């Protein structure tokens, strides 16, 4: 009897406390700015820290509906017959990981649960470290029955960026004579029918820097006419829209794109009901921080226009 009530109360208290704190803080800031006093930058830093930290502690979260560009990738993976092969490239470093690691995990989970085989690789040296993360949390943990070399394979990192891509678009083995554990290419069952990227059913690049999705489109997707999709850090997402939908069929942009994908996946099948949804969890603090940033812009601009008006009068 008591436990659901408790749960609701803790959440409610959390939301209330956070909102009150943020509102009071903004009010104080506005009052102080309008009375013409400098606000030290460090106070603003502290304020933004708490506005993010409180919802992290109290776990405020929201639901998200998938936008068309996210849904397109979901539908593409749904439409692939099982036994298809998808390549997921980890083109990011730990700095981008909070945004894109949830996408990589959700996509891996989606593919493996549909018996789609995955070839993993990375164009960032740090991608290999991040790949290890997905292996320990998703691949080996949730799909213990999947076998290395048959259901998935880890090719690891190669240096060269676009140079790597230019080779694998016509020949995988030339670039990757072995997988990351030194198993020769010819002994990996996944590659029985795969000679180059052109034999893949879909390529997904997860990243946000250079080399990344743009290089994939230029060096692999377009020349080889291979379906491409991407999950990217928010900073670069707007720059990739010109490639949609002809050159990239779907795009997850930033933690919001990841949250949309997680929600789409969770709603699609009860077996995903308990899956971890790190991106959705992050959207709570994200939302409050956005409100703070927007309020800052409003306060700053009101101040600006008031001062300008005064300047004109005097």
């Amino acid at each position: 009897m008591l436990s659901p009530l408790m749960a609701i109360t803790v959440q409610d208290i959390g939301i209330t406390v956070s909102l009150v704190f943020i509102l009071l803080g903004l009010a104080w800031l506005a009052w102080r700015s309008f009375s013409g006093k400098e606000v030290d930058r460090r106070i603003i830093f502290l304020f933004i820290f708490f506005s993010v930290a409180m919802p992290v502690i109290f776990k405020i979260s929201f639901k998200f509906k998938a936008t068309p560009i996210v849904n397109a990738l979901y539908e593409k993976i749904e439409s692939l017959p099982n036994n298809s092969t998808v390549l997921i490239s980890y083109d990011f470093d730990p700095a981008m990981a909070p945004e894109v690691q949830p996408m990589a995990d959700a996509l891996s989970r989606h593919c493996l649960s549909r018996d789609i085989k995955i070839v993993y690789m990375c164009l960032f040296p740090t991608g290999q470290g991040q790949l290890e993360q997905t292996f320990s949390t998703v691949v080996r943990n949730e799909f213990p029955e999947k076998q290395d070399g048959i259901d998935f394979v880890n090719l690891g990192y190669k240096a060269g960026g676009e140079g790597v891509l230019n080779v694998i678009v016509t020949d995988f083995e030339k670039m990757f004579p072995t997988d990351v554990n030194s198993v020769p290419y010819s002994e990996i069952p996944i590659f029985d029918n795969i000679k180059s990227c052109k034999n893949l059913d879909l390529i997904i690049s997860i990243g946000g820097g250079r080399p990344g999705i743009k290089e994939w489109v230029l060096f692999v997707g377009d020349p080889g006419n291979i379906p491409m999709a991407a999950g990217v850090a928010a900073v670069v997402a707007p720059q990739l829209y010109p490639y949609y939908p002809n050159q990239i069929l779907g795009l997850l942009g930033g933690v919001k794109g990841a949250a949309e994908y997680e929600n789409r996946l969770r709603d699609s099948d009860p077996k995903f009901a308990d899956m971890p949804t790190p991106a959705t969890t992050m959207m709570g603090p994200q939302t409050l921080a956005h409100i703070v940033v927007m309020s800052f812009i409003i306060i700053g601009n009101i101040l600006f226009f008031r001062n300008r008006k005064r300047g004109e009068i005097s």
Partner: protein
Amino acid sequence: MKKTSMVVFATIASLFLLSWIVKGMFSEGSSPYLDGFLVTLAAFLTLAIMSFLYKDNPYYKFAEHLFVGVSAAYAMCLGFWSTIVGNLIPRLSSTVSDFFQVNYIEGDYNIFFVIPIIFGILLLMRLSPKAGWLSRWPLAFIVGTTAGLNFVRYLRSDFINQINSTIIPLLIDWNGFGDFFSNMNFSATGQLVMMFSNLVIFVGVVCGIIYFYFSKEHTGWFGRASKVGIWILMITFGASFGYTVMGRISLLVGRITFLFKDWLEIIS
């Protein structure tokens, strides 16, 4: 001044030492004190970088310098194992391949793989003040490769394909004006909005290019088009701006989650 910094140092050191011991005592696993140390170290480094927000200080400098060293070595190691051991050695020598337990790749042209080694070593000549000019050869190779690769790819993906993707109809599902006006609505998936979107894309791309067109003075109709171009660009940058804010905040959420979850274990 010296004394305060000593006190600060002592406080910080003892706090993190305490954290290590507590984490070690309560964590489960085969080597609790090692795990405890690693998490404490990560937390210390996180806070050391964040201390830059207060002001530039020795802890921040320590963390930053450590980062520079570690990241250079990380890239070197991965490059060595993946490319030198993975791609180069198997094409050069079967004995060395055996040592690293990689399969030797037979091939008629393997001898040519001494070229990248020679160029690689020449590149390292840059470290020597006298033979530094030799590093221009591999540099020329790198520049030549990127230029050759980029030339065709950019032309295809960023020029030709973009033009092709912009050839879109301005009238969609068109059955004459009567039909259009009688079914007109502002639904996000409606005919009017779709047509307007295509119009914006068409006008936006053309005017945007006009803004970046430098061979004609921006006056008259050309000037007006370029004005429209700059507006479209501003909306574009606004969208970028919004997304960047979103991205940066996510990274902070990631770090704060680490501090509260993995280190302090306030949340699960």
